């Protein structure tokens, strides 16, 4: 991740002045999905682009080195080679943006990626994920250990009790949710976050990244997220340094759509390698 938030003086009046009209944001969220679609080659190209934004994630209690290894391989080769060739995209080095695992699995991931010979970053959730309700001391220690193991990106769960009492923290990236909530990445919430990112950029010149996570499962969803970012922030945010999609099953649906685009047929489950 190259963009860093250089920070700024805390001016709480920025926050107190923010007005969000909930029904209006809901209407915008509905519209944005209906007003922008991409078809055919545009759809294929956009889907491949979406692949490069994915933080390919596994956050299960039963993760072991074997499924982490499979995940890392899929991150390196997200789309079947022959499909990419058909699109003349095989030499673009398309991989996912990162793999995202629990701190205890960082070691496995780093090892597997090294074995596959690629430099995809390893991201780790940390700091008492997903609730964040642990002591600051252990939270910091958790981050330190994950970095020691080779994680280069840390998804920090902030202590939300601080936010709700008006004590804010800064970051390089903001994420809609942990993906472990009952409601995760939704469009209305994303619109509010994207507008806040734009305001902060206009005020300070700092570009903050955005990562929706949780519930993004279909290729169609991912296209909607891309156009949402394009509409609200512009093309300059459509790069892995500033935009990620946290997802686990999304990739296989994208691959299926690419398969259909290239062959004109709908793929069977076994036509595509699992992740």
């Amino acid at each position: 991740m190259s963009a860093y938030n250089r920070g700024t003086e805390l001016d709480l009046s920025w926050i107190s002045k923010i007005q969000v009209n909930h029904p209006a944001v809901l209407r915008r969220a509905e519209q944005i999905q209906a007003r922008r679609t991409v078809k055919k080659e545009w759809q294929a190209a956009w889907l491949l682009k979406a692949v490069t934004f994915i933080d390919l994630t596994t956050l299960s209690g039963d993760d072991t080195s074997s499924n982490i290894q499979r995940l890392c391989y899929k991150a390196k080769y997200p789309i079947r080679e022959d499909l990419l060739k058909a699109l003349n995209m095989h030499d673009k080095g398309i991989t996912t943006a990162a793999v995202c695992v629990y701190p205890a699995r960082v070691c496995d991931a780093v090892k597997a990626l090294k074995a596959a010979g690629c430099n995809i970053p390893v991201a780790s959730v940390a700091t008492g994920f997903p609730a964040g309700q642990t002591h600051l001391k252990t939270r910091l220690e958790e981050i330190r250990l994950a970095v020691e193991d080779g994680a280069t990106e840390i998804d920090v769960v902030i202590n939300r009790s601080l936010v709700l009492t008006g004590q804010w923290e800064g970051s390089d990236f903001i994420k809609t949710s942990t993906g472990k909530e009952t409601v995760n990445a939704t469009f209305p919430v994303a619109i509010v976050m994207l507008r806040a990112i734009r305001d902060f950029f206009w005020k300070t010149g700092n570009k903050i990244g955005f990562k929706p996570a949780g519930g993004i499962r279909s290729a169609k969803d991912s296209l909607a997220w891309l156009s949402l970012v394009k509409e609200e922030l512009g093309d300059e945010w459509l790069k892995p340094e500033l935009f990620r999609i946290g997802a686990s099953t999304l990739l296989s649906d994208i691959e299926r759509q690419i398969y259909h685009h290239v062959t004109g047929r709908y793929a069977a489950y076994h036509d595509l390698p699992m992740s």
Partner: protein
Amino acid sequence: MAATRAGPRAREIFTSLEYGPVPESHACALAWLDTQDRCLGHYVNGKWLKPEHRNSVPCQDPITGENLASCLQAQAEDVAAAVEAARMAFKSWSAHPGVVRAQHLTRLAKVIQKHQRLLWTLESLVTGRAVREVRDGDVQLAQQLLHYHAIQASTQEEALAGWEPMGVIGLILPPTFSFLEMMWRICPALAVGCTVVALVPPASPTPLLLAQLSGELGPFPGVLNVISGPASLVPILASQPGIQKVAFCGALEEGRALRRSLAGECAELGLALGTESLLLLTDTADIDSAVEGVVDAAWSDRGPGGLRLLIQESVWDEAMRRLQERMGRLRSGRGLDGAVDMGARGAAACDLVQRFVCEAQSQGAQVFQAGDVPSERPFCPPTLVSNLPPASPCAQVEVPWPVVVASPFRTAKEALLVANGTPRGGSASVWSERLGQALELGYGLQVGTVWINAHGLRDPSVPTGGCKESGCSWHGGPDGLYEYLRPSGTPAQLSCLSKNLNYDTFGLAVPSTLPAGPEIGPSPAPPYGLFVGGRFQAPGARSSRPIRDSSGNLHGYVAEGGAKDIRGAVEAAHQAFPGWAGQSPGARAALLWALAAALERRKSTLASRLERQGAELKAAEAEVELSARRLRAWGARVQAQGHTLQVAGLRGPVLRLREPLGVLAVVCPDEWPLLAFVSLLAPALAYGNTVVMVPSAACPLLALEVCQDMATVFPAGLANVVTGDRDHLTRCLALHQDVQAMWYFGSAQGSQFVEWASAGNLKPVWASRGCPRAWDQEAEGAGPELGLRAARTKALWLPMGD
């Protein structure tokens, strides 16, 4: 592996991440045109009418210019045939119970649902509007409209008892319109039992398709007839015998001209004029969302016209930056492309925009245009005009689509002054997160529809209409139904046209009057003077006219009012208006009751004056008592006005407000000198209007007696009474630009003049056309019709959310 379908461009798109075309196939629209051999006639009485020897106009794709079909242009005899079909159909259609009509409307909704692709591709193809808007918005709303009005039809016998359908409705639609404009009007008309002849501009296939779908349903072929033809047919349609109402939707000046040419004609006229909207952005607004409101209003294919945008000075820079940023992301293109915000609306619309922009620039305005828009005609880029001097001509005219004219304001009070400082009164939205401020602005705006923190929402159950020069006809909700109803038992409206009425000289000169001797008789000397601003004043002309009693003796002298007295009376009424309109209905009722009590105290004087006019003593006393009852009844009735609507898909209420019209001019009939005066005064005041009244010409003395009580009971200026030459005073009032509505009960010629003169500020007019009215009967003297005409509706949308 199967044949590769991928093209070479994926690599480039992968880098640029641009949008591509999302073409919607319009094959079915073309196939439908083929069923007509690419030649569209008219749809009359359930059949296609393709008369020979008619001119035809090509129906073109507005973007490619490709000829899609040729459309036959109707002539007078085709119009007559359509009206005759509708007249025949009316007999059975209106005689059926509402449930039968409800079934027909429901079936039409189902047919539309089954053939919606045909409908939306055809509409988008020929109008150039974005297919997404037609598909997701218009077609769905069309079905909702049919369902809503089917329900209204099924409950008509109970809910609308005492009302009956008018008859055949002539519907006139403007050159650029969505087929929805037609649906909004035909649904209520058909629901209540009217039949329709729609005159659509040349080359409008969608209304014809709708008529065909309706006609093919079977038993009622003639209820919806569509003919297409040039604007020159409008007067021909309007003056067809049998047409009871003309609903006109279109440009302001055309509406004004139609108002003049239809004066005295048989058909009633409902106008819906202009397309401009207004958006008020305050400094507490969610500015990003308000910017989306601007997009909805002017830079999408949802809104019909341009937008006047008022931005509070303290957030001007921020709002302009966001607007310009947002404009850069708008996309325009072929309407049948599924990913564009704006289509194209033809060369004429494009020329209009160019002219407006050039003029604005020459008058000193800054113009900003942006967006992904094809450079060739007929595409217009989204346009933002700012720094337009308020006094420049461009600031006065209607803003065309897709132009937004932005200007700053300092305080909410100033915003209201600016917003209300235009002759138009269509729709507006208010963006503010402060509830009190939002409601203050929402109530204060003189428009038909106000959305709080939203723009352009519509629903079949919410009345939509306007005020001032936007015309006062309504569609949707209960108000839409009343447009096509009249009180049961009212005779069909007849023409009172007098071809040789000279509008220039009608009522211009006042015949001079000479002294006719001293007043004699038992009753005390009658009050003298014009009752203006709460007291009796000498007339400007300083002359008087004699009033004679039933036996020809001099009953008394009344002041001879003139143009200057009318001016003074209207001014006094305007001064009193804000205070009176701001009173609660309860407070207004209390004053009306006080006046009723005063009338009862004065009963013997009033009765003896009525006796001198030839009434029996008992009848005279009854008239006084009934007058007092009328005052009390309206005071009570107005407590229960307005209501809250619930709308599908919207959290929060929509308020249907009944607001006063403003200054109402009332010319009372000669007969019933006391009862008619009070019967008209009571509803007018109860709804919060202030009035200028011309009392009975035969015996104005009774009204003047009432004025003596009004002087003590009412605040000054609430009710003003001017006596004098009836035609002259009528002329002065009807031509007054600052009188908001007029009721005229008098001669046919006077009615014709009032209708003609109302075109000046398009004030709503209620003219008796020389027909007497039974003022002592409940239905005619105090029926709901008076209440409907004494106030105007405003729909206030209040979406809620945390």
